[in-house]
């Protein structure tokens, strides 16, 4: 997903002279081809996230469209005021490309996990928050990002994530994708959590539980219309996110239901509880430990349906 995203920055830069790249201190060889081809629009500025965001703001004020890449947690926590004031207050078209969203960096511990990134980005006016499910979808998102107004936060998965998207389904920022038509249950997921939600839905189907999957790849602006259409049709909705339960997708769905007067069924939220992640291992291991893998999601659906069928 990261490689696709960065390669697309280069592609966009070829196409549009306004596109520039700003990185911190990324891996050796990152975007070498772009650096060779257009060195004047390639900036690698060191471990200084506050400065990088300010520089991106200044470039955007001069009419450029900066794509900024570094590790998600440093791109959100470290320079939050710069993101809020320099980017959001000025409503500048800066794209934050966040490597290792969620628990991708599981072996590296809590300093490197970005599990409240969507919550704190979502809280900022003018910010768009998106999390693609796989590399091809990342490509579609990146192509659309060029002319999207205002700042964007784009969360990456690990790389090599299973491909669940296809060309035919289309893609529009802010428009959720119905991956599976709802039956009794609707799973609402974002990012790579949608992959697990689809697996869970398939398993549940075998048990006679018909389960839809809504891929909410854009967490802000949230596709409230899709929720208003689909939620009244089901007995149970379950939100799934690789993110803290405070302020992410699940919160956004509950807010939309409450504020929009949507006739919603019971809603269950799956995510990371309000505590720092304590364990290491792999992303898969951590997802399973929080019940965010297919088995955990299926179990949550079964228990959620008890007494409702």
């Amino acid at each position, binding site marked *: 997903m990261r490689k696709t995203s960065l390669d697309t920055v280069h592609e966009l830069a070829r196409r549009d002279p306004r596109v520039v790249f700003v990185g911190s201190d990324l891996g050796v060889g990152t975007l070498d081809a772009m650096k060779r081809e257009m060195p004047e629009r390639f900036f690698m500025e*060191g471990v200084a996230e*506050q400065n*990088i965001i300010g520089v991106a703001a200044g470039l955007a004020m*001069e009419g450029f469209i900066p794509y900024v890449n570094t590790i998600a947690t440093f791109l959100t926590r470290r320079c939050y005021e710069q993101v809020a004031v320099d980017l959001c207050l000025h409503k500048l078209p800066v794209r934050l490309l966040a490597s290792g969203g969620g628990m991708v960096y599981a072996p590296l511990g809590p300093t490197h996990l970005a599990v409240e990134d969507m919550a704190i980005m979502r809280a900022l006016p003018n910010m768009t928050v998106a999390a693609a499910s796989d590399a091809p979808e990342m490509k579609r998102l990146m192509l659309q990002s060029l002319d999207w107004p205002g700042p964007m936060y784009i969360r990456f998965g690990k790389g090599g994530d299973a491909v669940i998207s296809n060309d035919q389904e289309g893609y529009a920022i802010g428009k959720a994708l119905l991956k599976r038509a709802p039956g009794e249950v609707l799973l609402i997921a974002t990012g790579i959590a949608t992959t697990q939600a689809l697996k869970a839905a398939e398993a549940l189907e075998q048990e006679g539980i018909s389960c839809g999957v809504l891929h909410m790849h854009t967490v802000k602006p949230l596709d409230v219309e899709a929720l208003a259409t689909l939620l009244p049709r089901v007995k149970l909705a379950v939100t799934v996110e690789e993110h803290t339960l405070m302020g992410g997708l699940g919160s956004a769905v509950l807010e939309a239901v409450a504020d929009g007067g949507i006739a919603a069924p019971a809603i269950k939220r799956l995510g990371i509880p309000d505590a720092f992640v304590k364990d290491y291992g792999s992303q898969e291991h951590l997802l399973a430990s929080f019940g965010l893998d297919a088995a955990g999601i299926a179990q949550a659906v079964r228990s959620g349906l008890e007494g409702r069928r």
Partner: protein
Amino acid sequence: MTKTAKESLSPLDSRSRQLRQLVIKALEGGGRGHLGSSLSLIEMVRVLYDDVMSHRPADPRWEGRDRFILSKGHGCLALYAILADKGYFPEAELTRFCRAGTYLGGHPEAGKVPGVEASTGALGHGLPIGVGMALGLRIKQSANRVFVAMGDGEINEGSVWEAAMCAGKHKLAHLTALVDYNKIQSYGFTTEVQPLEPLADKWRAFGFAVTEVDGHDVAALRQALAKPDAEGRPGVVICHTVKGRGIPFAENDPNWHHKSKIAPAEIAAMYAALETV
């Protein structure tokens, strides 16, 4: 040895007094404001807008303008005074400073106030943005310059030094920082809160061409700001200033960094005091 403003309080000329009158007018309108922090800046903005920068008050977004960012946004009364004087907006708006419905807030906002390039107020944001602008202008092959005015307390922020490193690396000769070195930050004297010396050496170490001037000496400022560094380094002009300059009872007094609930009698005293300097 650098002559500091404190040691040489030369009289203010009529232009400098007139701009300070506009500051007091806004202060009167709002009943509050960062008086001390604004008065130390007056000659800097005066020289930039009168003598140094290319700009068009009738066309604030003119592509060929030089850019000025007031990074110490709390000094906005000085910026509002010069912008009103130049005709970016009517002087009458100054009397509505900080009031409901005005566009002249206690910190300047881009997109609201004609002539304001960047919304500031949170400290340490202006220099990184200025670096980005200068890089952008370089890509566009523009010869326009970018000026960023910062406070001495403000440069406690680490982001300033991140940006300084970056400006030095890119040899941004068209970027000029100004430090309003009035020696007083919010809590008190910089020597006690967070000493900055050796300040010129710090900037030099980051790759800047450093000039030190009496920040109220109009001729010295003109000379220091006239041209980018011939050797291609970003510039910094360390302006030794007097906080509250022009109102003797407010000069060098940390209590005048910011004042609220300013009484009409105090305003009258300010106008009167201004005539004595």
